[in-house]
């Protein structure tokens, strides 16, 4: 009895050692990958805090500014922005405001409209329901993104170029993938609450607003997050339609134009940091919802 125990123990210990070593290797790989991912942030932040003079007089990369850190580049962006001549407030701030209202308006309406369609597909009975749903899903197979540039002709014909309409209006009609996702979610909900509400005399629209939306907040939040990030970072749309008027520039457009104006990399890096910070704060606050939002999608897929 004791002989077998002593024989087992070293083998177990050896196995434990192996597991510990494996875990250490995994940890090291994850750490190295983190360094690879965050090195650009370090470089950008450090450079944005280096004075333009030190940067200009240096012959190689500056790992840490010898003259100490300075916020001059940030000041420059808010005081010497040449577009202020037209926009009166710094173009990065105006760009942020423009981005926020354009994105939030589109995302909220789009979510509401998509949810409404998903609710009808899931809970209402009407002729051709499943056929229309197949059609809606089939639109996802069409790579409309390839047609972004030729769409310019269409909006130019409507007289919408140079206005925010091409950025906002198409989004107000809802999106196929959101409808698909929300329908899956609604399908899993039991109909009891809806039947009870019907008995209370609630109409179909009231049921959507008062029952479906409150009961599906997680699904809406997941969709909101990704639509919002997509809208916030959208570049090609504003570039095509809003380029001519700095007063309508979005944050990304202002950022790309400013980097063409400021020649110092300290200023460029500062501009990038300013543009990144709002969304990074948003992510830091809601990171759990981001991860859950994608995970729900993975489960459905």
């Amino acid at each position: 009895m004791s002989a077998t125990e002593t024989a087992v123990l070293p083998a177990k210990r050896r196995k434990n050692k192996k597991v510990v070593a494996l875990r250490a290797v995994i940890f090291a790989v994850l750490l190295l990958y983190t360094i690879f991912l965050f090195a650009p942030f370090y470089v950008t932040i450090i450079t944005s805090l280096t004075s333009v003079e030190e940067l200009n007089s240096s012959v190689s990369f500056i790992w840490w500014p010898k003259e100490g850190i300075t916020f001059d580049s940030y000041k420059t962006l808010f005081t010497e922005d040449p577009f202020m001549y037209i926009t009166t407030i710094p173009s990065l701030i105006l760009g942020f405001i423009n981005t926020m209202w354009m994105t939030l308006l589109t995302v909220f309406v789009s979510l509401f409209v998509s949810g409404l369609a998903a609710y009808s597909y899931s809970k209402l009975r009407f002729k051709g329901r499943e056929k229309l749903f197949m059609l809606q899903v089939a639109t996802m197979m069409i790579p409309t993104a390839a047609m972004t540039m030729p769409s310019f002709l269409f909006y130019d014909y409507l007289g919408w170029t140079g206005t925010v309409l091409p950025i906002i209006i198409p989004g107000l009609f809802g999106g196929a993938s959101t409808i698909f996702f929300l329908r899956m979610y609604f399908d899993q909900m039991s109909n009891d609450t809806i039947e009870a509400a019907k008995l209370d005399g609630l109409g179909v629209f009231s049921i959507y607003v008062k029952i479906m939306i409150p009961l599906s907040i997680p699904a809406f939040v997941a969709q909101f997050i990704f639509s919002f990030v997509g809208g916030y970072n959208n570049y090609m749309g504003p570039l095509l339609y809003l380029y001519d008027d700095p007063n309508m520039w979005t944050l990304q457009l202002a950022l790309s134009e400013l980097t063409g104006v400021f020649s110092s990399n300290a200023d460029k890096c500062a501009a990038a940091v300013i543009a990144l910070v709002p969304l990074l704060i948003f992510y830091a606050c809601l990171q759990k919802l981001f991860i859950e939002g994608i995970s729900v999608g993975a489960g459905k897929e």
Partner: protein
Amino acid sequence: MAYQEKVAVAEAVGAVEPAPTARRRKKINKEAAFGLITVLIPLIGFVVFSGFPIVISFIVMFCDMDYYNLGSIAWNNFATFQKVFTDDVFYRSLLVTLWVASAQFVSLAISLLMSVLLSKKVFGSKVFQILFFVPYVCSSIAVSIMWMWMFNDSFGIINDLLVRMFGEGARVQWFNDPSVYTWMIFIVTVWQAPGYGIVMYKAALGSVDPALYEAAQMDGANAWTQFYKITLPSIAPTTFYLLMAGVIAGLLSFDIPKLFSPLDWTGEAGPDNMGLTTVLYVYIRGMTYHDMPAASVMSWVMFVITFIASFIMFKMRNRKEREA
């Protein structure tokens, strides 16, 4: 109990649908109308804002036109097609596009590797997962600015490290050497793209039935066999989804090349146009040269390529599912 009473009771407890009275039928009609209208809104939006532009660009391919004036279109006997398909720059842009899009395969491999490592629940794996998603949230514009500075020929951190490690000879002329130029866009894409895949894969790995692994262990399968025979097939739907979304995004890559490769004084985007993806070329033809017919032809080429790519992956996925 009389039949009618039974029905009344059943109706009251919600066991059967009530017989359609006139009022009830009217209500159903109203409901049907409401349903039809709400599901038609997105479809109408698609027809108007995606369908019309597609049709217009299709017509424009076969026509000459002044500036952006649709009233001036005139049949040109396939002249635009001849021009585009004999344009060396267009073929160069296709090469660059495929090169950049291939970064999505590397990105997928990294996603899988990192998600498998994360699922081993080592110290700090929750924090790692949160950090790994950060690049995905960042705008491509800011990311391009950051990396352009990193790749800077004279003062960038990458050349600084290369010179420190391997001497002055190791310095790479990232922005002037056509043979390395496209690798910059490739690397930036690989840096930014995996975050989404890591989270997706992590969730998919978590939903694999543990009983499968237990059974495999009883059969004496080693870790590699388990991964190959159980994990990979179980997460195949996620792989196809990620591959499809990634390849489409890669083929239509615009933001990063646009920032990296503004047109220089010779009219090239990067040395020898090595930063010119097709969508960027479409933008340049359409916006800088007001050449919408050529832009339409090239957009249609990308439209067809992305459609075929996603269609093939869709078919592959269906076949896999039938096998399973």
